[in-house]
């Protein structure tokens, strides 16, 4: 299929969504389930309000801090685990346990421990993103070809050069898969955590709007979350992946 054709098929989903939306909304009162026109109006109202940007900003801030902490620490721990089999074996049950628990289940505990505000939300994000990235970094380390290491060694590479010119590029594709998966989980968990115990943020905006029966603002919140995720994926993560991991064989 040509790129244009692919793009056309993909873009068909937008009118489709709108049609389904209109069909469902037409069966309910506007106050309960508003149609596109009301929601778009609400959207433009919100885009003109400073408060809306504050909520988006605070969620982004939490995401940025939490995700950076998770990515950097997962990378370090993953590399060490890749280098040491005993450490890997030691980590394995811990990773399985934490991967099986939904990150936002920790939110109440984090709020008790860290109080309201940014800290517990950041903790949820770290919890959500750390393990998927870790698992993928470890996997990437295991996939490093012995012959690549030996080739570098036979040219006289030292430890630093080995890490910089073999380990790092070779682990990138796996690490990036982890980053993309971890990002998706982190973003969703953040919104959920803000809904149950936040004091601000896009998730909090949605839950308070719901309590006040403001369904059109709820819809605006949901659409904002989706669009932002799409934006990060397309503008940030995919180009980065292309830049650092495009050589990987399709898996």
């Amino acid at each position, binding site marked *: 299929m040509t790129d244009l054709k692919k793009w056309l098929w993909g873009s068909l989903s937008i009118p489709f969504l709108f049609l389904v939306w209109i069909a469902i909304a037409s069966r309910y009162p506007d106050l309960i389930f508003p149609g596109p026109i009301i929601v778009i109006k609400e959207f433009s109202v919100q885009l003109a309000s400073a408060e809306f940007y504050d909520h988006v900003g605070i969620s982004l801030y939490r995401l940025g801090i939490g995700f950076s902490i998770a990515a950097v620490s997962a990378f370090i721990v993953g590399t060490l685990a890749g280098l040491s089999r005993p450490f890997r074996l030691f980590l394995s049950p811990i990773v399985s346990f934490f991967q099986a628990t939904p990150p936002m289940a920790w939110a109440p505990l984090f709020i008790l421990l860290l109080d309201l505000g940014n800290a517990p939300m950041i903790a949820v994000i770290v919890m959500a993103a750390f393990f998927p990235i870790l698992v993928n970094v470890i996997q990437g380390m295991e996939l490093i070809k012995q012959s*690549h290491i030996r*080739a*570098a060694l*036979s*040219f*006289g590479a030292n430890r630093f050069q080995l890490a910089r010119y*073999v380990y790092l590029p070779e682990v990138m594709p796996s690490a990036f898969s982890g980053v993309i998966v971890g990002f998706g989980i982190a973003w969703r968990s953040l919104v959920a955590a803000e809904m149950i115990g936040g004091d601000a943020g896009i998730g909090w905006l949605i839950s308070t709007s719901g309590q006040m029966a403001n369904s059109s603002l709820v819809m605006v919140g949901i659409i904002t979350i989706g669009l932002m995720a799409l934006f990060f994926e397309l503008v940030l993560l995919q180009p980065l992946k292309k830049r650092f991991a495009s*050589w990987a*064989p399709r898996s």
Partner: protein
Amino acid sequence: MEKELNDKLTINQLNLSYDGKRTIFKDVSLNIKKGEFVSIVGPSGCGKSSLLNVIAGFIQPTSGDIYVNKTPVKKPGPDRAVVFQDLALFPWLNVIDNVAFGLKIQSMDKKDRFEKSMEAIQLVGLSGYEKASIHDLSGGMKQRVAIARTLVTNPEILLMDEPFSALDAQTRENMQDELMRIQEKTGMTIVLVTHSIDEAVYLSDHVVVMQNGGGAILDMINVSLPRPRNLEMRLTPAFNEYKRQLIQNLKEGHVYKGEQSGSGI
């Protein structure tokens, strides 16, 4: 044992066991002179790759010594370049960056790196493909990249583990001729592991026959066909006589293996 003055690679009484129980090979001694082409043949699992890895310095022998120019070597180094069976090209680098890798490790500056790499690429006949991605190359072209990557650092010894086994017959013959041409030009000493008797005779000055079941080197056959060699020589009686000798030797190795496995190895 007296070592000759022009020995490039000396292997002295090498023994290897991975687990301390089963012997992979024992008492392997070889003297290889500068510019010689030596092939190692032997049944699968007899330790050819292991021997090459010990010479390269990737694994430590249980006992014995390796000398390059009379200097003992213990770890990998650029004096012994390796062409790996899986080639070990770096798929995240394009052709020229793969070729330049060894120079980058040696911290050569960018301009010299470029010049030397272009030279090597030309020598293996890949001019015009400098920017190509490794994924897009044919098997034979990848081979050439792997060889070019070793040439840039001017290694004295080239170690190759079944480098041509994945190629079709036609490409394989071409690469064999290329390799001889490159050796002639560079004066490198080459040690090649191969399963092909034909290839061993065609390329080598000496063919080493290893035996199965943790033995010493079974035999060494000197191939005194004139150089430069060409495809027609493969049809001569002399060529076939060398092949016959080798096959005979390998058969004896097989009988030997049978006795060994009977004794619980």
